[in-house]
């Protein structure tokens, strides 16, 4: 259509710093060692996108470089804190994570499959749910808040030992119903601004909305370190903020609805690498 060509041309004239910074050929290699897939063909179940791209590809060169070396990645301080917590005994059973799991590296590969079906519990489990079940049932310790510093640190550690592995979340079998619910949420237009996740992250990614350069909203980099917040941010916290920005009422952090959304969003990133803890602005 003539109209579209015209607006596209006009939009091109408006080159902003955020657009300049996104170098499409940049490669993400962490510590000169872990090679990440930051762009690949969209998984088959995903009709709305042909190519999926990690959030890293949308950030400025400066922010990108912070994620390329653990000495520069501010999230690694939290990962170190979690390593200490891993070996610290807590709770009435006088156990630490290490009492049963040896090193954190024993959880290598787990993050690439999360969230996943937990047969015993009969529902989809996220990293937070596994950690808290071990804390309450096995260590007889207090559970950590979903969005607490301790929990974000621990999920960052769990993610870090799977970095570079390919996200491969199951969408069939017993998780299907939860996945469908997550998909429904993804395409629902919430709030007085009537925006769905898809409106921003599927239909308008790579565009600037005010000063923000919209990504595809993948979660392979979570928990992410957000420079703006100078801390780790959990996936549910991000979902919460995005729905708030529609002038809507978000679901609770840790709710079944957000677990379902997490599963669905994770599956949209099947094929990307686990990057968490990533760095974002």
């Amino acid at each position, binding site marked *: *259509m003539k*109209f579209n060509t015209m607006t596209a041309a006009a939009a091109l004239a408006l080159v902003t710093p955020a657009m300049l910074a996104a170098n499409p050929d940049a490669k993400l290699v962490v510590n000169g060692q872990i090679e990440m897939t930051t762009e690949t063909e969209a998984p088959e179940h995903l009709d709305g996108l042909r190519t999926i791209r990690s959030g890293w590809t949308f950030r400025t060169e400066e922010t990108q470089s912070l994620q390329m070396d653990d000495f520069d990645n501010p999230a690694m301080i939290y990962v170190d804190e979690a390593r200490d917590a891993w070996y610290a005994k807590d709770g009435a059973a006088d156990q630490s994570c290490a009492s049963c799991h040896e090193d954190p590296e024993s959880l290598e590969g787990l993050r690439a499959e999360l969230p996943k079906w937990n047969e015993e519990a009969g529902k989809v489990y996220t990293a937070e749910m596994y950690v808290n079940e071990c804390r309450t049932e096995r260590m007889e310790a207090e559970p950590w808040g979903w969005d607490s510093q301790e929990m974000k640190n621990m999920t960052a550690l769990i993610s870090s030992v799977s970095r570079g592995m390919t996200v491969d979340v199951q969408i069939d079998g017993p998780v299907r119903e939860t996945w469908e619910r997550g998909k429904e949420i993804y395409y629902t237009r919430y709030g007085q601004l*009537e925006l769905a996740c898809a409106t*921003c992250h599927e239909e308008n990614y790579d565009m600037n*909305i*005010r*000063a923000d350069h919209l990504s595809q909203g993948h979660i392979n980099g979570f928990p992410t370190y957000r420079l703006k917040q100078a801390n780790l941010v959990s996936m549910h916290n991000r979902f919460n903020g995005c729905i708030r*920005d529609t002038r*809507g*009422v978000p679901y609770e952090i840790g709710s079944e609805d957000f677990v379902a959304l997490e599963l669905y969003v994770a599956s949209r990133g099947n094929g990307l690498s686990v990057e968490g803890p990533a760095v974002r602005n």
Partner: protein
Amino acid sequence: MKQTATILASCVIALAGAAQADEGAYAQEISFGEYGGVAEPLTDTPGDPERGAEIMVTKSEGNCISCHMVSALDFAPFHGEVGPPLDGVADRWDEAQLRGLLVDAKQTYPGTIMPAYFKTSGYVRPGQAFTKKPAEEPLPPLLSAQDIEDVVAFLSTLHWED
């Protein structure tokens, strides 16, 4: 330019049948034309274009530039690119159509990302502004009737220079 509007209008007709714009009430009775325009001004006070410009750049009001580039508003930073640039928009649309776009752009473009600025109900999990607290419908519209007249007055000044 005129030709573009005609082409567009015919696309709109084709779309309207497929994706029926959702129901919702407005802050006052509104009658939309065939293509989503609103011919009747919403107030008796003529719009003030200067105030309209202010509404468009103010985050807590129209926040229009978060999606639209407008050269005449380049004193304000960070114009987005989710919507088309509005330069010359008064050559593409008449006042009624501009008003309709503000009241509820989905009547013109079914399924558009552009929010309805005068709608009060028909929302999913609406909140009280950005507080995350649930809000009872009818909600206060995003812009008042006079705000909309002011923005329409400003948009009506956006002609291509010749």
